[in-house]
């Protein structure tokens, strides 16, 4: 029987087994460290074509989140408003302001303003805003105090580990539906008791929350 492999193949296999083992160990150490320390651009303002100020519109003027994010209660996406929504007021207010140049040109040529995406969960994750709102997850639980932000940035890392903090124990975070849009909401001291009541009242299926296919279909 001829020898297909040269003698030093043995050395190669030996080193490969050793190296492979070391690689796996390094991976097992490095990945959790990476997952726990990367902040995934939390708190880093995302530059936008127009310096839209959420604090001015939401806090000072008191415009409801849903005036612009119209589909947040009924659809998967909250939706970024079309230029028509901006123009509803800005056809009369601050007309000709150079800060709004991108808005005027969008309105005239019918091309949407190219807002830069802030929250971008991977496309193998099926996130649905309406389901979360109906279950009593507050806007500020995930998005932070957007009503105090001059620009816009992520308040939370939006990683799977972060999602699971709530999916494993929703009673820690749920609020009454009437408080979902309250940006200044503070959980009561008996949050766990209230949370358990809400989990039952809103029919939150805790088994389904930790099932892979709930979010990855």
């Amino acid at each position: 029987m001829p020898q297909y492999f040269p003698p030093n193949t043995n050395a190669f296999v030996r080193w490969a087994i050793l190296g492979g083992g070391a690689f796996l160990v390094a991976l097992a150490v490095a990945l959790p460290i990476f997952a726990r320390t990367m902040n995934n651009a939390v708190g880093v303002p995302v530059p936008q074509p127009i310096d839209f100020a959420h604090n001015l519109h939401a806090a000072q003027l008191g415009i409801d989140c849903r005036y612009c994010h119209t589909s947040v209660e009924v659809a998967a996406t909250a939706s970024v408003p079309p230029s028509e929504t901006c123009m509803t007021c800005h056809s009369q207010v601050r007309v000709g302001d150079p800060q709004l140049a991108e808005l005027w040109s969008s309105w005239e040529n019918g091309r949407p303003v190219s807002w830069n995406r802030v929250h971008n969960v991977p496309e193998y994750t099926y996130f649905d805003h309406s389901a979360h709102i109906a279950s009593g997850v507050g806007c500020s639980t995930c998005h932070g105090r957007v009503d105090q932000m001059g620009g816009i940035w992520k308040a939370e890392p939006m990683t799977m580990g972060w999602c699971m903090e709530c999916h494993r124990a929703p009673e820690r975070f749920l609020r009454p539906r009437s408080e979902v849009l309250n940006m200044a909401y503070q959980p009561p001291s008996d949050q766990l008791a209230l949370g358990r009541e809400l989990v039952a009242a809103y029919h939150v299926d805790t088994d389904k929350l930790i099932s892979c296919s709930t979010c990855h279909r």
Partner: protein
Amino acid sequence: MKASRSVPSVVLAAGLALALLVSGCGRNMAEQPRLGAQQASPFFADGSGNRPLLEGTVSRERGGIDPVFFTGMGPDGLVSQLPIELSYELLQRGQERYDIFCSMCHGYTGEGDGMVVRRGFPRPASFHEQRLLDASVGYYFSAMTNGFGRMYSYASRIAPEDRWAIAAYVKALQLSQNATLDDLPNEVRRALELGDSEGRLP
């Protein structure tokens, strides 16, 4: 001869293994070749992946086309009857939607003194002037659907059901701001006269 050939084969094997490992990298599952909601697309002239509804698109809800429900217009002009059932829940829904979409200009009481008006938007008419007190519920639905004066259409932002709820709430708002003591049920009236402003008996 044998040795000189075997060294590159080790390197080759290592290279192959590395190539195999690296081929797993990339974000092709995170960024899939499909358009998500509101994603940009160079395929269409306006650069948007969202496509507008075609002219004349009608809702298939409510069993087909119901002109009164979708336009507020009956055979004799603007309707004065709600095409949906009036209920306390409908008025509450109308109040919630009014506060979201209308109060910014019209004010929470309908006086036309909303926050955006205070910031320079021309003041709309008060809902409590005679012309608008006389206007039918269909008039308000039609104004929301088609826009009115400087007010843009809200048809793309508020579903028809909610536009009717708001229209009903505006009529209720008018009633509330122009009510007299005689309009109150006797019991509430007595409570108001004896008790505090909330109608609670002492």
